[in-house]
């Protein structure tokens, strides 16, 4: 015991420990006989069992939460940094790919050499995002 003997809380705790130790040394059958006459003893047992059930739920819930957070962080992938192409570069890329009849481009895209700047940029960025062309590609 680490408590100070001058501290009344520690003094009380000494008495408490003697009582609790004696309780643990009491044969179970004798204790149950006492509990039959003393409702507070029975209530203490019911309360302890309830506290245990709550503890199981609390620990289970915190484990579940920890597992969810671990899964979340394991599944998290930062969005790829996609280089913003200017319209001229985007058109160059599309022209080059269509000239090469690159299968990475859909038929519709191959017929769209005259698409708008915005559409060209969007198409190239989609191809980068899909990994069809390298984001650091030089044209």
């Amino acid at each position, binding site marked *: *015991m*680490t*408590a*100070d*003997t001058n*501290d*009344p*809380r*520690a*003094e*009380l*705790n*000494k*008495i*408490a*420990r*003697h*009582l*609790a*130790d*004696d*309780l*643990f040394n*009491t044969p*179970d*059958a004798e*204790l*149950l006989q*006492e*509990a039959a006459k003393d409702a*507070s*003893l*029975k*209530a*203490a*047992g*019911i*309360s*302890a*069992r309830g*506290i*245990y059930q*709550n*503890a*199981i739920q*609390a*620990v289970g819930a*915190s484990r579940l939460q920890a597992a969810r957070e671990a899964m979340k962080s394991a599944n998290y992938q930062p969005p790829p940094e996609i280089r913003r192409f200017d319209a001229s570069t985007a058109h160059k890329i599309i022209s080059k790919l269509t000239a090469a009849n690159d299968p990475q481009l859909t038929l519709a895209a191959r017929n769209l050499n005259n698409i708008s700047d915005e559409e060209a940029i969007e198409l190239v960025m989609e191809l980068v995002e899909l990994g069809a062309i390298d984001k650091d590609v030089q044209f």
Partner: protein
Amino acid sequence: MQKIFLQCLYSEKNEPLVTWGANLITTEKIRDVLSVDELRESLSSLTEAKWIKLGRSSEYLCMGLAIEGKDILNLAFCKALEGKRKCPRGLPVEVFIYGAMKSLIDAYLKNRKRDPLHLTVKTSEEDDSLDIDDLQPTIDTPEEILKAKQTLDEIDQTFKDDEAMVVMAQLDGYSPKEIQETVGLTPTQYASTLKAIGRKLDKLAKKESLK
């Protein structure tokens, strides 16, 4: 030679714990503890008498403190179920939980001694010291000390004869055997006296002035 099982052969850090030589197995370092699942299974199958022991002892241990028995019992269960406290194989689980509560109370008293500093300064990295931060005392330290002092005064006035002598001997740190010898009680008389003390303390604890 002690009988050992395969599961005992490695420590938690996966270091081999047994050394072989001349057909002897050294088992001194083996830490044979229950897994969390085993502990949960054992606790779940406790009998009514064991639950009574845990419930009532938690109330006793918090006597005169600003925390409740149910809180210290809950904390002991949680730490055990989280695997932060390991139950040695062979030790009855209710005794293990009881020991955990006593240890937490020690840490609580130690921490509250340096209150209010303990709220802002961590001077110890001991597990118990950290664990008891989960407890929320209902009153401040000075009030808690005053309440304990009042309870001791009430005890002083309540107990007479053998009961008073037993309480005095308990406060002086005598062991149960020494108390029986000093006061002149048989083991049965000592047990009866303790029960009488317990009943009177229960009544005291319910007194509004000491709550």
